C-alpha cells in the first residue's frame, strides 16, 4: 500500500514540473493565440541561466535567489522577443507566429551549445531538499514534496491574479473574445506583452526548478514542448485549472501505467489526448470557441486561376527545371529529386491548410505511411516498382480516411493537436512493432529498379509527379469541390445553411491531402532506399508546416516556393556549417518580419499594388479587415 501512495506522490511531482511550464503556455495561447513553439526554448534557457547562477552564488539564498533571478531574466528576454518580433506579426495569417517561434527555437538550440558548451551540465541540489523522507519503508525525495507543494501554490497565485486583479479580468476577457476587448479600448499591445512575460516567466521557472533533478542540455526544449502542448490541449486551451488537472492525469497514468506496460510512456500522452479530444472536443475544461466573426481576409485578394501568360511562365519554369540533368551532377539531381518530393508533401498540406482551413500538425503520418506502404509492398510482396508506387500511397489514403474522420469533427488548434496525436500513434506503432517495421532500425534496401535508378531518371520522375500533383490540386481548388471546401473554411455556418455537408467535404479534403502526401512518401522511400519511423515523426510534420507558412498560407500554390526555398536552404546549410540551425532559424525569423504573408503572399501583394496604379485607399481598406481577424 505504501508503495502505491509513494508512486502517486511521485506522479504528482512529475505533474508539478509539467504544470508550471504548461500553465505559461496556456496563458499565452489563450490571450494571444500564438502557438508558442519557443516555449520549450525559454524553459531550457531558464535552466541554463539558473545553472550558471547557482554555480556562482552560494548558500540557500543564493540557490533560491538564482532560480527566481533566472526566471526573471528569461521573462525579460521574452518581453524583448515579443516586442521586437511577435508584435510585428500579430496581424499575419493564423499560425504564422508559429513560424517565428520555430525559427527562434532553432537558433536557441545552437546558441546554448555555443555559450555553455556541448557537455551535459548537472546542477546543485536544492539546499534543504537534498535527501528523502521515509514513508513506511519507501523513500520520497523531499524535493519532490517541495514541488508537489509548489504547484498548488502557483495555481492559487495565478487564480488570484486572474480573479482579483484588473489585469486578470482583462486577460480572461481577451481569452474569451479579444476583438471585443480591443473594441472596448484596452491597449492590446501591453496586455499581450505582459501576458507573454508571465507565460515565459513560468516556463523559465519550470526549467530552473529542474536543476536539482535533471541534467541541463541542449535538447531539453524538444523533450518538453510537445508534451506540454498536449497537456494544455487536454486541459482545454486557456484554462489554468485544466492544465493542472491534465498534468496530474497524464503523470499519474504514466506512473501507474509503467507498472503494467513498461513501454507505455512513449505514447501515453498522445493516447490520452486522442481519447479526450474525441470525447470532449474542447479538452476537459475548455469551452467551445465562439464562432469566428472574421471577415475572410482572402476576399481582399480573391483567388483566380492563372492567366494564360502565367501558365506559360509556369510551364517555362517546369521546362527549365527539367533541363537540370543536362548540366548538373548526380548530387544536385538527387537534391533536386528530394526537393521535388518535398514540393509534393508541402503542396498536399497546403491544400488542407489554405484551401480547407485545416492546419494539420501531423501531416508526416501520411507521408510516412506512403513510404511504409512502398516498403511493405517491395520487401514483403516483392512487387515491381511501378505497382509499389501506385499502391503504396493507398496506405496513406487509408490512414487519412480513418484519422481524418475523427479529426474533422474538431476545428482550429484542437484539430491540429488531434492530427498530431494520430501521427504520434502511427509513429509509435512503426517504432515499436519491430517484427514488421524493423523498429527504429527501419526497413532497408528499398531501391528503385533499373529504369529509375539513374539520378536523372529519378529526378524526372519526381519532377513529373510533383508537377502533376500541383496542377491537379490547383484544378481542384477551382472546381466545385474546391469552392465548397473554401466555403467551409470561410464560414461553416453559412456553408451548412446552404445545404453543403461540411464535414464530408472536409473529410474528403483530408483524404485527398493524405493520399497526396503518401505519393510523396512513396517516392521518398525509393529516393532514400530505406524507411524509418522518422519519416512520420513530428519534425517532418513541422518541416511541412514551415514550408507552407514560408510560401504563404493565403496563396493558391505558395507551398511550392516555400518547399523549394526551405529544403534547398536546409540541405545547403547542413552541408556547409555545423551551425545550420542558427543560420536557418535566423533566416526564418528574417523572412517572418520582412514577408509577413509568406514569400509568395508578399510577391502577390506587391504585384497587386503595382496593378492598381492609383489605389484609392486600398492598403487602408486591407488593414481593418485584416485586423478584424
Amino acid at each position, binding site marked *: 500500500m505504501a508503495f502505491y501512495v509513494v508512486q502517486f506522490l511521485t506522479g504528482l511531482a*512529475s505533474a508539478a514540473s509539467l504544470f508550471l511550464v504548461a500553465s505559461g503556455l496556456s496563458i499565452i495561447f489563450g490571450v494571444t493565440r500564438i502557438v508558442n513553439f519557443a516555449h520549450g526554448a525559454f524553459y531550457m534557457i531558464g535552466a541554463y541561466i539558473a545553472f550558471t547562477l547557482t554555480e556562482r552564488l552560494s548558500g540557500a539564498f543564493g540557490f533560491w535567489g538564482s532560480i527566481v533571478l533566472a526566471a526573471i531574466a528569461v521573462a525579460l528576454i521574452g518581453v524583448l522577443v515579443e516586442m521586437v518580433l511577435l508584435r510585428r506579426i500579430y496581424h499575419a495569417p493564423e499560425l504564422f507566429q508559429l513560424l517565428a517561434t520555430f525559427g527562434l527555437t532553432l537558433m536557441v*538550440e545552437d546558441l546554448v551549445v555555443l555559450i555553455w558548451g556541448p*557537455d551535459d551540465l548537472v546542477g546543485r541540489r536544492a539546499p534543504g531538499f537534498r535527501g528523502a523522507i521515509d514513508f513506511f519503508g519507501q523513500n520520497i525525495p523531499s524535493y519532490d514534496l517541495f514541488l508537489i507543494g509548489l504547484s498548488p501554490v502557483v495555481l492559487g497565485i495565478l487564480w488570484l491574479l486572474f480573479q482579483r486583479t484588473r489585469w486578470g479580468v482583462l486577460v480572461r476577457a481577451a481569452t474569451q473574445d479579444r476583438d471585443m476587448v480591443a473594441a472596448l479600448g484596452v491597449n492590446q499591445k501591453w496586455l499581450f506583452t505582459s501576458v507573454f512575460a508571465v507565460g515565459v516567466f513560468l516556463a523559465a521557472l519550470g526549467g530552473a526548478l529542474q536543476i536539482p*533533478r535533471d541534467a541541463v542540455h541542449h535538447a531539453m526544449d524538444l523533450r518538453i514542448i510537445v508534451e506540454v502542448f498536449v497537456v494544455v490541449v487536454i486541459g482545454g486551451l486557456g484554462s489554468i485549472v485544466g492544465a493542472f488537472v491534465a498534468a496530474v492525469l497524464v503523470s499519474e497514468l504514466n506512473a501507474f501505467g509503467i507498472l503494467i506496460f513498461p513501454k507505455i510512456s512513449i505514447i501515453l500522452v498522445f493516447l490520452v489526448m486522442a481519447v479526450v479530444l474525441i470525447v470532449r472536443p474542447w479538452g476537459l475544461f475548455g469551452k467551445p470557441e465562439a464562432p469566428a466573426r472574421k471577415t475572410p481576409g482572402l476576399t481582399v485578394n480573391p483567388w483566380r486561376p492563372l492567366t494564360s501568360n*502565367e501558365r506559360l511562365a509556369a510551364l517555362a*519554369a*517546369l521546362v527549365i527545371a527539367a533541363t537540370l540533368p543536362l548540366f548538373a551532377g548526380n548530387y544536385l539531381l538527387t537534391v533536386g529529386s528530394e526537393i521535388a518530393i518535398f514540393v509534393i508533401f508541402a503542396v498536399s498540406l497546403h491544400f488542407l491548410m489554405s484551401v480547407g482551413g485545416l492546419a494539420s500538425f501531423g501531416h508526416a503520418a501520411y507521408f510516412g505511411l506512403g513510404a511504409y506502404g512502398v516498403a511493405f509492398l517491395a520487401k514483403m510482396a516483392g512487387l515491381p516498382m511501378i505497382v509499389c508506387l501506385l499502391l503504396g500511397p493507398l496506405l496513406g489514403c487509408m490512414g487519412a480516411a480513418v484519422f481524418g474522420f475523427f479529426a474533422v469533427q474538431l476545428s482550429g488548434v484542437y484539430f491540429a493537436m488531434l492530427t498530431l496525436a494520430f501521427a504520434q500513434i502511427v509513429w509509435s506503432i512503426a517504432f*515499436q512493432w519491430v517484427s514488421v517495421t524493423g523498429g527504429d532500425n527501419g526497413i532497408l534496401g528499398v531501391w528503385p529498379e533499373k529504369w529509375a535508378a539513374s539520378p536523372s531518371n529519378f529526378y524526372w520522375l519526381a519532377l513529373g509527379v510533383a508537377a502533376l500533383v500541383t496542377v491537379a490540386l490547383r484544378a481542384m481548388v477551382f472546381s466545385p469541390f474546391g469552392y465548397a471546401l473554401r466555403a467551409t473554411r470561410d464560414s461553416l455556418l453559412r456553408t451548412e445553411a446552404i445545404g453543403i455537408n461540411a464535414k464530408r467535404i472536409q473529410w474528403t479534403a483530408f483524404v485527398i491531402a493524405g493520399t497526396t502526401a503518401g505519393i510523396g512518401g512513396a517516392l521518398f522511400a525509393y529516393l532514400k532506399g530505406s524507411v524509418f519511423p522518422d519519416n512520420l515523426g513530428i519534425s517532418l510534420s513541422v518541416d511541412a508546416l514551415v514550408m507552407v507558412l514560408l510560401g504563404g498560407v493565403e496563396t493558391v500554390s505558395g507551398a*511550392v516556393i516555400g518547399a523549394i526555398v526551405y529544403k534547398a536552404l536546409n540541405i545547403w546549410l547542413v552541408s556547409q556549417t555545423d551551425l545550420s540551425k542558427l543560420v536557418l532559424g535566423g533566416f526564418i525569423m528574417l523572412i517572418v518580419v520582412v514577408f509577413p504573408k509568406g514569400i509568395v503572399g508578399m510577391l502577390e501583394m506587391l504585384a497587386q499594388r503595382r496593378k492598381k496604379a492609383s489605389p484609392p485607399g486600398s492598403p487602408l481598406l486591407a488593414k481593418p479587415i485584416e485586423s478584424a481577424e
Partner: protein
Amino acid sequence: MRAKNYFVGAAFALLAGGMAHSAMAQDIKIGEINSYSLLPAFTEPYRKGWQLAVEEVNAAGGINGKKLVVISKDDGGKPADAQTAANELVSSEGVAMLTGTFLSNIGLAVSDFANQKKVFFLAAEPLTDAITWSKGNKYTFRLRPSNYMQAAMLVEAASKLPAKRWATIAPNYEYGQSAVAVFKKLMSEKRPDIQWVDEQWPPQGKIDAGPVVQAVAAANPEAILNVTFGADLVKLVREGNTRGLFKGREVVSFLTGEPEYLDPLKDETPEGWIVTGYPWYSIKTPEHDAFLKAYQAKYNDYPRLGSIVGYQTIKSAAAILAKAGSSDPEKLIAAAEGLSVPSPFGEITFRKIDHQSTLGAFVGKTALKDGKGVMVDSSYKKGADYLPGDAEVEKLRPKD
C-alpha cells in the same frame, strides 16, 4: 508560380557554390558523417580525435605520399539527411570512402547506401549488432565493440555476482532493446538460476525517472542492469540515489564508465557499478601514453571515448587506404579484411568473417574520487575474446 524558375536557379547556384572548395585532385579524400548538431557532447571530442589523426597521418607523409583530407558533414540525427550527405560526399566530393556515424539507424542507413552505391564504409560508432550481422554487407566495416561484445564483457563480470533476481532499465529503442536481449540471453546461459523480475523501458531522452525508480524498487531485485545514458542516466542516478534504489543492490551498466557519461555525474556518481568505459587516467601502455600526450598537447583537454573512436577511425581508414594503394572499393575491402592496425588500446584487427574490428573496451567499477566519478579496478577486454564462434557468425550474417 512565375517566380519558380528564379528560385530554382538561385537554390542551385547556392548549392553549386558550396562545392567550389573541393580539394586538390592528388589528395586522398575521406567523407565523414556524424550527428554533430544533435549530439555535440559526444561528437566534439570525436572531431578532435579524428583531426589529430589527420594531422599525424599527414605529418608522417600522408598516404603513399598523398595528402589525406577529411570532409566532414553533419547529419542532424536523421537517417535521411545522412544519406543526402553521403550522396554529396560520394557524388560531388569524390571521396574514396565513407566513415563515421553515431546512431545505429543512421549507421544502417549509410551502410545500405554504401552497399547500393558500392562505396566502402567504415562505421565508427554505431553499436547495433545488425550492422555487421543480420544486415551486414560486404562494403561495411565497423570499429567500435558491438552491443553483443559489450554485453558479453559485462556478463563475464555480472555472472560472478551472487544476485539471482535481476531487473532491467533500458531506453525504449533498438539499442536498449538489443542490449537487454543479448545480456539476458548470455546471462541466462551462464546462470540458469537467474530470474528476471522487472523491466522498465523509458523513452530515450524522456525518462520520468521518479516513477521508473519506484517501479524497479517495488520488484525488489538484487541486481539491476542499466542501459540508459546521457541526460537520462543523470536523472536516473539522481532519483535512484535519493530514493536509495542502488543501496545494497549490484548494478551493471552499459557505457557508464565513458567520460562523456560519467563526468557529468560529478559527486553524485554511484559507487561500485560494474561498467564498460574508458578510464583514460589509469591506462598505462606506451600506445595510449603517446596518444594521450599528443591529444593533451594539441587540445589542452583530456580525451573522451569519442576522441579514441574518432582518432582510431581515421587511423584505420588511412591504413586501409595505404594498403590498398587505390580508392577502388573492391581493393579497399580486400585490404581491410584481416588488416591489423595499431591503436591506443593495442593492435586491432578487422575480421574477415564479419568486418568487425577487435577493438575492445575497459570493464571496471565506478568510484568517487575528489568529488568526481572515476573507473577503478578496470581491465582491458580484447574484442576478439567476446565474439561468438565463426560457425555462429556465419549463420548470423547474410552471404555477400
